[in-house]
């Protein structure tokens, strides 16, 4: 890109400059503005030692940056740039860069052309009726300069932020024996249902075992009752009901008892009519482990 220096060459040229050795005239430069002026003079308002020039030029991030530098250095108002003067200074720099054979990015020459055009437009007399209507020829350039300047500033602001490595260090304590925990996979309920659907289809195909619809809360309650009876002892019928569940809960429990009895999972006993009813699981774990 633009101002990448070729160190040795540039340095030697810079030295040559500082020794006042005359450099060859530039004739291929197509910009008349500069032609006709003694070329080798380092611009008079460059208050920089010649050997530092190379460094300075290298430091410009492009033509906008260079222009901004020229404007800011002289405390000029960016909204009211003396175009002729700035153009002259800009061209001086371009000349020097050329002299030093710094690889000159095309953007610098484009900007030179833009400046020249603005200058000529400002010099041309405008027809009176257009006065005040035509846009200031500098407007577009000013807009670009301002736009560039705000991001140049933003870059400086970002650079000033405290940042890792330069200003901040993160902590990292040692973890001995870092073994990997394996977590169980997530399950999507829908996947489970689809799996069930497929089983049901297969079951229907093979004919036996019809799975019919029933309230699942009864199925759930069946398990709960069985667990209560898991000690193998007799439990009073009433003790299996929880009044706080309301009528529906009582019905669910009752249905589950009937289901369990039908399924031969529990025994229901009553010694005599109207005596207490007792229930007991028909089977319990053989050995407690």
């Amino acid at each position, binding site marked *: 890109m633009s101002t990448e220096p070729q160190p040795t060459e540039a340095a030697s040229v810079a030295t040559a400059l500082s020794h006042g050795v005359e450099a060859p005239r530039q004739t291929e430069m197509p910009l008349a503005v500069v032609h006709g002026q003694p070329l080798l003079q380092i611009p008079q308002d460059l208050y920089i030692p010649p050997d530092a020039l190379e460094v300075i030029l290298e430091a410009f991030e492009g033509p906008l940056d260079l222009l901004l530098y020229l404007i800011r250095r002289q405390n000029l108002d960016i909204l009211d740039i003396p175009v002729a003067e700035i153009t002259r200074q800009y061209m001086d720099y371009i000349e020097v860069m050329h002299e030093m054979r710094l690889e000159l990015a095309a953007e610098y020459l484009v900007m030179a052309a833009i400046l020249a055009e603005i200058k000529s437009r400002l010099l041309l007399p405008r027809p009176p009726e257009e006065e005040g209507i035509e846009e200031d020829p500098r407007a577009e350039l000013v807009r670009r300069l301002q736009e560039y300047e705000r991001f140049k500033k933003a870059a400086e602001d970002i650079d000033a932020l405290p940042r890792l490595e330069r200003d901040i*260090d*993160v*902590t*990292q*304590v*040692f*973890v*001995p*024996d*870092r*073994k*990997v*925990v*394996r*977590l*169980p*996979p*997530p*399950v*999507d*309920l*829908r*996947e*489970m*249902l*689809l*799996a*069930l*659907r*497929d*089983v*049901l*289809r*297969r*079951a229907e195909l*093979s004919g*036996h*075992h019809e*799975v*019919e*619809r029933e*309230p*699942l*809360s009864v*199925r*759930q309650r*069946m*398990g*709960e009752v*069985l*667990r209560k*009876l898991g000690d193998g002892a007799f439990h009073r019928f009433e003790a299996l009901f929880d009044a706080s569940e309301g009528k529906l809960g009582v019905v669910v429990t009752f249905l589950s008892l009937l289901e369990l009895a039908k399924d*031969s*999972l529990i025994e229901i006993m009553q010694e005599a009519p109207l005596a207490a009813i007792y229930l007991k*699981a*028909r*089977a*319990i*774990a*053989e050995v407690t482990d």
Partner: protein
Amino acid sequence: MEQQELNNIVEAALLAAQQPLTLPMLAALFQEADEVSHDAIARAIEELTEACEGRSIELVEVASGFRYQVRESVHPWIARLWAERQTKYSRALLETLALIAYRQPITRGEIEQVRGVTVATSIMHTLEEREWIRIVGYRDVPGKPALFGTTRQFLDYFNLKSLDQLPTLAEIRDIADPDPQLALAPDTDDAPALPADPVHHNAGAVPDASTDTTRTPEDVA
């Protein structure tokens, strides 16, 4: 330099260093103007070690110097930082789970009868380990086979208040395939927003956080 300030800097250095630091290495952090003696650094180490009492990190000396490390006792939690998600469950497991949910209390033999194939012991183990199923009783037939039912954890995981909230079998038969060719597509993304967790198979607990904005605690549930 005050001992307290010195302690602070030594603590920060040990926490920031990626490796153990020796006393000379710690001493090298300071300049003459800091007026820090080797004794003062040794004392800092001592005081910082004490300050770890009752905390989950400790300051220990190993062969190459001093380092902070996480105490063994909290490893179970810390290790989850590097947890790995297992791959998905098999279809056999899901079928088994579904049958237990819908037909509980049910024996393994009965599950096999419906599925038409044996149920691997490992499947029952996995489901029990995850605490989604449990033995609720035994059937009074030869061998006294265990009866399985689902648990509260099962309901919680799928965000159900009770089993009644599961679709009926009739409704299940009507579940449309996303693609009839792939009855159980690996990812049924267009599923209705069912409770299950949105996400990341195979993901570590703390994978590339930059691209992952959806991580929720449920992921690891």
